[in-house]
């Protein structure tokens, strides 16, 4: 499959009195699902729309496989995008919506049937769009994005309005596409969703990049201050011993210390060497959702 790398470089969108996206740069690699994460109003949708030539950037560029979207001769065969659940005419049936897309793209009408089958929308194909549930609208959006068998998929908050079963279906579907070597970029404001779906993550807040990288690494770096709780009858001696090896120690209540920048094993070994009894030893995993909220709320969300 050709190079389907997405490169966003210095992208900026200024509205009167508001900078929605501010000098944003990141890369999205093929063959993996990349989560585009940030609170509502962080500029995710504006960024995706600039990438797709729907919103004109104030500055900066965005390319897919080295080319701007507007320069793609057959965009349907390169990029499939699902941007909003209501992008079909209310009075048209799902099948006719897909057929109109096929005609525009120069694809055989049989592709409409194939993608209807793929997303499991065949039973509702001849129903008008206005009668669709949100989940059916999302499936129709994915169906139309898949018409041209594109190597890049871009989805804006696809989980919105889906029931748990729909979310699981979507997750498996997108991960399957990535496994085939396609580029999959999915925006969301929910960290938990991205933990389950994505391998890479791009975190934005207030129109700026916060973190980018593999989910595991970014989470580890976010969770850098893992705390170890240790209970001991002699906190003074243990604290001195731990400080001596470079750990950060804080009092955590009577007979308890909160230790960071080390591991539970090192704390245990240090206590043994110092001849101090340990009554309790545990590692606190910080709540990632909390860390994410702290990280992104540092940039004001209401602008």
């Amino acid at each position, binding site marked *: 499959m050709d190079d389907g790398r997405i490169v966003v470089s210095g992208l900026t969108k200024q509205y009167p009195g508001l900078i929605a996206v501010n000098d944003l740069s990141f890369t999205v690699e093929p063959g993996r699902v990349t989560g585009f994460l940030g609170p509502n109003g962080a500029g995710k949708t504006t960024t995706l729309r600039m990438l797709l030539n729907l*919103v004109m950037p104030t500055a900066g560029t965005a390319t897919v496989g080295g080319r701007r979207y507007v320069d793609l001769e057959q965009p349907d065969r390169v990029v499939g995008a699902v941007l909003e659940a209501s992008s079909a005419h209310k009075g048209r049936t799902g099948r006719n919506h897909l057929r*109109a*897309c096929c005609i*525009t793209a120069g694809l055989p009408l049989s592709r409409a049937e194939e993608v209807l089958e793929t997303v499991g929308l065949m039973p509702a194909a001849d129903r008008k769009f206005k009668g669709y549930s949100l989940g059916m609208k999302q499936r129709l959006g994915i169906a139309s994005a898949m018409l041209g068998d594109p190597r890049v998929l871009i989805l804006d908050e696809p989980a919105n309005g889906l029931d748990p079963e729909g979310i699981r279906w979507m997750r498996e579907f997108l991960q399957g596409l990535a496994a085939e070597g396609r580029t999959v970029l999915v925006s969301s404001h929910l960290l938990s969703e991205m933990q389950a779906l994505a391998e890479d993550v791009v975190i934005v807040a207030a129109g700026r990049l916060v973190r980018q990288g593999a989910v595991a690494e970014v989470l580890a770096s976010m969770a850098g201050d893992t705390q170890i709780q240790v209970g001991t009858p002699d906190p003074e001696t243990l604290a001195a011993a731990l400080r001596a090896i470079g750990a950060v120690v804080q009092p955590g209540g009577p007979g308890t210390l909160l230790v960071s920048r080390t591991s539970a094993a090192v704390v245990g070994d240090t206590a043994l060497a110092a001849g101090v009894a340990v009554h309790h030893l545990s590692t606190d995993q910080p709540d990632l959702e909390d860390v994410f909220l702290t990280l992104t709320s540092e940039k004001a969300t209401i602008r």
Partner: protein
Amino acid sequence: MSQSTRLIHAELFKLRTTSMGWLFAVATVISTVVMFVINAVSANSLLKPFDQFVALETHGHGHGGRVSAEFLARLQSEWQLGHSAITQATTLYTSGQLIGVLLACLLGIVLITGEYHHQTATTTFLQTPRRTRVVAGKLGTAIIVAAASWLVSTVLSVVAGAIFLHHLGYGTELGHWGVLRAILLNLAAYAIWAVFGVGFGALVRSQLGATVAATVLYLVGASAASSVFDLVHTYWINKDWVLTLQVIVPEVASAVMISPTKTFDQSPAEWVGAAVLIAYGIVAGLVGTSILRRRDIA
């Protein structure tokens, strides 16, 4: 299939798969029938000898000198202008025009504004990111549908009109170049109004705003313009060219273009009307497209 052919094909398919398509067809047929009946009633009077015409127009009150001399003079002038099988044939054969070109204009508008109104613009511009191509496709579609509407309306009017004229003892007058030219120029009017509609729709994005504005301008534009130009002529510049200048109003230009006789005393030649209308179509199309190219779709 080339891209532009595909885009037009897709637009026609989109029209067929919503209620828009048949609503337009029904409106075309109904407006043609209604206007034909009105024109036939008027032709029936005008083609009568003058005394019968007066009797019809005054509902029988004309006998016994109860009609003022002034009114009689006006009837005389009206009868002289209209008492010709050629003039009446032209009017009858182009019956659909008055409402038809407005429908063509509205269709052009809705082809563009409907994308925003029905929130399909995202899909459309994702599939065809070069927006001038989208507008070009819609222009082609508007012209094709307007031409089809002209064809339906013309076939209905010519068949009914020929039967009607035959019934009154006249020929079809279709051998007369002036009549044929009016029918063909009528096609041009449909097409140009459709193009104007697409440009206007790109200019005024709101579906309701654009359609209402276009309809009001179309319906009152000509008479409003006539009043304004009459005032200027009477109180300011008492020259004939001031009245001739009315042709810069699109509705007037349209009437001047297709009318085989003078629309008003100072009206310029048909080609002037055509040129003005084409200029409006081009300007609206260009301005609308340049705005639409830079507009954010959110």
